[in-house]
């Protein structure tokens, strides 16, 4: 079966760029990826892309060129980037394309995401009565998790501290100022146990990944990164997801657990083999829970791991080395691909001031989005 190589990566700086539309940021990222691969747009045979708030991704063709390629729009919330990459990966694996693009971009308004119950199959009263907030979900899930597994609020602060510290080392990040422990710990409470600086903010940005059949990767790059697995899974009955008016008596493992297991099996590796990890950190508790859900530690172990510095750039299991969603913001369409961009930089040895030492060769990305979708990618030098 065909192997898939990543031969071009591109990013538009995350954060706020008032004079550029989300679409323009997406186009910027694609152009950078094409330049990185020294590939022409007309040579891209298939594309998958998504944006929640910045319009149809296939409008990019108006900016890049109307070549008649297959372009499918993807809509999977925060898992959009992972879903787009999975689709592009499958095309090459199946032999139906030799080159493929996965792209994501977004431009969100300030403040919390504003969800409409109708979009989620929920009745009006659920929104009217004040439940339609993603921040509540993260808080409620985390509160229970902390109770069940002995995670302290000190650990929540440390994860945020690391995020801003790493963001300060990353020229493409939005938040480039390291915040002190106290600044985070004393920031206003948003939804207990989560404070203001423990949450990512909806933001702007674009990211693009160019894939090709590994046999022709040498035409485009001397540093191909192999996409060994690209998996998307959704929830089973009984999981704890966003916007749930009730939870089943018997709780079942979240979709991240299955996505992770299946990716390990496809790639033929295990959690201990990885050198760098990007795990969905919509808020600092999510990073913590996702460490265990993706198999990198037992539930509760995060407490000692994080305190000991294991998840720092120079630690045994570096997590969110570019500052994650906390320091980059969360433009939904783009974040999953930003993670892949970062892992490629790391495996190529091009991450500059935030480079993981020791020549990392195996990387992992994980996204989770409403209503219960998880995407996992495994990348190898």
């Amino acid at each position: 079966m065909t192997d898939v190589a990543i031969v071009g990566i591109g990013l538009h700086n995350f954060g706020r760029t008032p004079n550029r539309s989300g679409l323009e940021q997406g186009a910027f990222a694609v152009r950078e990826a094409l330049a990185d691969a020294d590939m022409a747009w007309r040579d891209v045979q298939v594309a998958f892309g998504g944006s929640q708030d910045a319009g149809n991704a296939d409008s990019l063709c108006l900016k890049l060129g109307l070549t008649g390629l297959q372009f499918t729009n993807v809509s999977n919330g925060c898992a959009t980037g992972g879903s787009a990459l999975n689709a592009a990966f499958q095309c090459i694996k199946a032999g139906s394309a030799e080159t493929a693009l996965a792209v994501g971009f977004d431009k969100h308004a300030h403040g919390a995401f504003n969800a409409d119950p109708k979009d989620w199959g929920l009745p009006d009263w659920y929104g009217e009565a004040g439940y339609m907030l993603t921040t509540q979900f993260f808080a409620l899930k985390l509160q229970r998790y902390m109770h069940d597994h002995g995670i302290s609020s000190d650990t929540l602060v440390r994860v945020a501290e690391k995020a801003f510290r790493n963001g300060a080392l990353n020229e493409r990040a939005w938040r480039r100022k390291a915040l002190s422990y106290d600044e985070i710990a004393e920031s206003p409470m948003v939804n207990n146990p989560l404070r203001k600086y423990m949450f990512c903010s909806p933001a702007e940005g674009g990211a693009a990944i160019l894939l090709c059949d590994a046999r022709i990767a040498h035409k485009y790059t001397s540093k191909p990164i192999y996409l060994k697995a690209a998996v998307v899974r959704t929830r089973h009955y009984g999981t704890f997801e966003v916007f749930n008016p009730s939870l089943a008596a018997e709780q079942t493992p979240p979709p991240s657990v299955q996505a992770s297991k299946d990716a390990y099996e496809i790639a033929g590796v295990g959690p201990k083999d990885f050198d760098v990890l990007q795990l969905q950190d919509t808020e600092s508790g999510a990073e913590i829970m996702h460490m265990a859900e993706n198999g990198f530690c037992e539930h509760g172990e995060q407490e000692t791991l994080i305190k000991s510095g294991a998840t720092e750039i120079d630690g045994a299991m570096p997590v969110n080395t570019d500052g994650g969603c906390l320091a980059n913001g969360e433009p939904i369409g783009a974040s999953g691909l930003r993670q892949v961009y970062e892992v490629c930089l790391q495996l190529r040895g091009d991450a500059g001031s935030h480079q993981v030492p020791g020549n990392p060769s195996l990387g992992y990305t994980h996204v989770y989005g409403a209503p219960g979708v998880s995407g996992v990618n495994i990348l190898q030098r």
Partner: protein
Amino acid sequence: MSVNKKRQRKIAENLFSELHQTPVLLGSLCGACDEHFFPRQDACAKCPSEDMQDVVLGSSGQLWSWTVQHFPPKPPFRSNASAEKFEAYGVGYIELPCGLKVESRLLENNPENLSIGDSMELKIVPFFTDEDGCEVLSFAFQRAS
């Protein structure tokens, strides 16, 4: 002289009712697999089956998780308070005797007074008032006395 009592309506039908003067939550029970649901459902998400019965879920339970909403949500949230006068509100999941955990507003917004495992009881209270002055009632849990 007639006394004008404020008109009231429920925020939605089939969510809650009163049984022997005690407020109760309403939901569904799947006849095929015995799974409970809230709110009422036409089909079972677990088995799947359409053999659904209307049931009374209960009026008390234990606090399974909680948080406090400290910032005023955007619409569709409805409140008669302005953003400046917004009062934080508690939200939690209450584990009912059948094991189902129902998401609910809480009548407590002080984090010091909320703990996983607390015994909670159901109340029906006005949440907001329509433009025509009609009070809209919904359900919330408070710590059992």
